[in-house]
């Protein structure tokens, strides 16, 4: 090695030119291309299936479902593909969680688990730049892949929306459409990297990511989403199918809402009403609405109109994006201050 010339060491003045981002991008790509390839292969296989099965559904819908209420539509479209479509939409719900867990959680956990962080964090590029250079391109990549995939999901669902069996607002498909799918994927990735940083081991971090994602997704679908915009309230029991009904209730002569028990009591007390509508077909039946309104009670329904689908997508995409940025920023902060 004495034969080799040693390059003159540059002056170490205060303002060192940092290592360029594009060189860090190569590092991230080289380290994670297998994981990204796995995500691409997984989504690719899923996409081929969606494409083939979607084509059949489109043909069936076009051939039999005009009008959508026809018997042939029920037999050849709904009957034949309905179950499959439900299973597929449930499987799709898990996709962001899986991408986030398998692409996100190991990024830092693997470094900490194998000790390679001692290599990575002592290179000239510096810990902060390294972390940002790893996390941001990966986050953008998984979000972009998921966003592209959404186009296919939308196309797959389109016959069901056209035939009136699925409203875009339903919990089954809302987060598969629009911005929501990509935003949920990004959030899962962000949860994954933070879990990996906190837990420091890949497999437990993957499990924790799946659990945290499921909790967040269920809480959003069950409680949070309906409050994005204050629901509209109406007396009209015949809302269009695109509307998302949040709740309904009755008020008495004094303006106070009736309890479930009170409604049952009123219906049972009137023998004729009980005979006419049966004991078990309560509130949702228009007959009940009609009966109670005739007797001076007022029917109320709160709902989100179908026109609010895109505002809701913006809101859900927005807060998920904000959450993801926050989680990734927290991760970067933890990397900076972590003691070896």
């Amino acid at each position, binding site marked *: *090695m004495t034969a080799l010339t*040693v390059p003159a060491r540059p002056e170490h003045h205060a303002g060192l030119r940092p290592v360029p981002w594009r060189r860090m991008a190569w590092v991230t790509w080289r380290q994670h291309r297998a994981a990204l390839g796995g995500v691409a292969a997984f989504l690719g296989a899923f996409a081929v299936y969606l494409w083939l099965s979607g084509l059949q559904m489109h043909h069936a819908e076009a051939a039999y479902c005009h009008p959508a209420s026809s018997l042939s539509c029920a037999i050849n479209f709904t009957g034949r593909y309905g179950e499959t479509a439900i299973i597929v939409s449930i499987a799709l719900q898990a996709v962001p969680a899986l991408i986030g867990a398998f692409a996100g959680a190991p990024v830092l956990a693997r470094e900490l688990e194998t000790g390679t962080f001692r*290599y990575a964090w*002592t*290179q000239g590029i510096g810990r902060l730049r390294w972390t940002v250079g790893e996390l941001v391109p990966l986050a953008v990549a998984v979000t972009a892949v998921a966003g592209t995939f959404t186009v296919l999901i939308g196309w797959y669902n389109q016959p069901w929306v056209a035939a009136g069996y699925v409203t875009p607002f339903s919990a089954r498909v809302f987060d598969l459409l629009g911005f929501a799918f990509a935003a949920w994927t990004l959030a899962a990735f962000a949860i994954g990297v933070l879990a990996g940083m906190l837990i420091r081991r890949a497999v437990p971090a993957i499990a924790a990511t799946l659990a945290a994602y499921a909790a967040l997704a269920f809480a959003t679908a069950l409680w949070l989403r309906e409050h994005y915009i204050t629901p509209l309230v109406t007396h009209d029991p015949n809302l269009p199918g695109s509307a998302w009904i949040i709740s309904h209730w009755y008020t008495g002569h004094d303006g106070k809402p009736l309890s479930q028990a009170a409604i049952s009591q009123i219906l049972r007390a009137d023998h004729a009403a009980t005979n006419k509508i049966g004991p078990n077909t309560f509130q949702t039946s228009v007959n009940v609405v009609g009966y109670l309104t005739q007797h001076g009670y007022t029917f109320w329904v709160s709902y989100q109109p179908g026109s609010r689908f895109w505002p809701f997508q913006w809101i859900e995409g927005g807060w998920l994006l904000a959450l993801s940025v926050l989680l990734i920023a927290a991760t970067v902060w933890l990397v900076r201050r972590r003691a070896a």
Partner: protein
Amino acid sequence: MTMNIIETSGLGKRYGSTWALRECTLAIPAGHVAALVGPNGAGKTTLLNLAVGLADPSAGGVTVLGDKPAGSPAALDGIAFVAQDTPLYKNLSAADMLHLTRNLNRRFDQRYAESRLGELGIPLNRKAGKLSGGQQAQLALTLALGRRPRLLVLDEPVAMLDPVARHDFMATVLTAAADDGVSVLLSSHVLAELERVADYLILLSLGRVQVAGEVDGLLACHRLLTGPAAEADRYTERPVVHARRGQAQAHLLVRAGADDPVPPGWETHPVDLEELVMAYLREPGAAALPGPARGRALPPETGEPSEVTR
């Protein structure tokens, strides 16, 4: 060169309620191969982690390469660190590891790195995980030296290596130190090779600096006295670091120069580095630190000898 490659003042690191390192005040001048020795749990890895910026101090401060805060961009730029067990990305090839390191640093001597791997017979296309332990260590060292650092920090670099690999590894380090003027700080359990390798010694014990100084200076101010065991306790002329007694003879390692008077009936010998280190390792209370400002005063009298040999 009067620059200090590492300088610490009152440096301490606490994990939970345990101090892994405390009141560590050091100044290692540039241009040395400095060995950091001490028993397990003495704080060696902690001190190295603080120096390379992997850990933040709980107390005091540490600067490197003159006056740069540890972990700052300028510090990272000039320091290459090879951690314990030489972590590498096992699924990447040697060539990829070179490429990675080149991309993660402002400069990287690709020609040097490739020719070194060639000399060592490490195939560029072999995955790091498939290399032998010695080859992995050499690859990690090559990555570090390819960065052309001013300071090379090695944490237990040879602990896992067989004797041949250990020798080859240290030969590379010493060549870099001699030819390129790289300062080296290495921690090691292996005392046998220390004298050949190190010209500066830092001995840590129980999280504190026990001995620090140039090896020549330390050897010059310590002597081994051999004399009658019965008289061992009466020797008080110079501080005794460690006393080893047999039935007839006692061996005292004392802080004394070659010109210091020797009691009648006693013989004096120079010490070697291993004897010196062993004596201090056996007496965690004793200290030999340069300068009055640094560390604690020597104990006025040595305590009970900790070891009795027959």
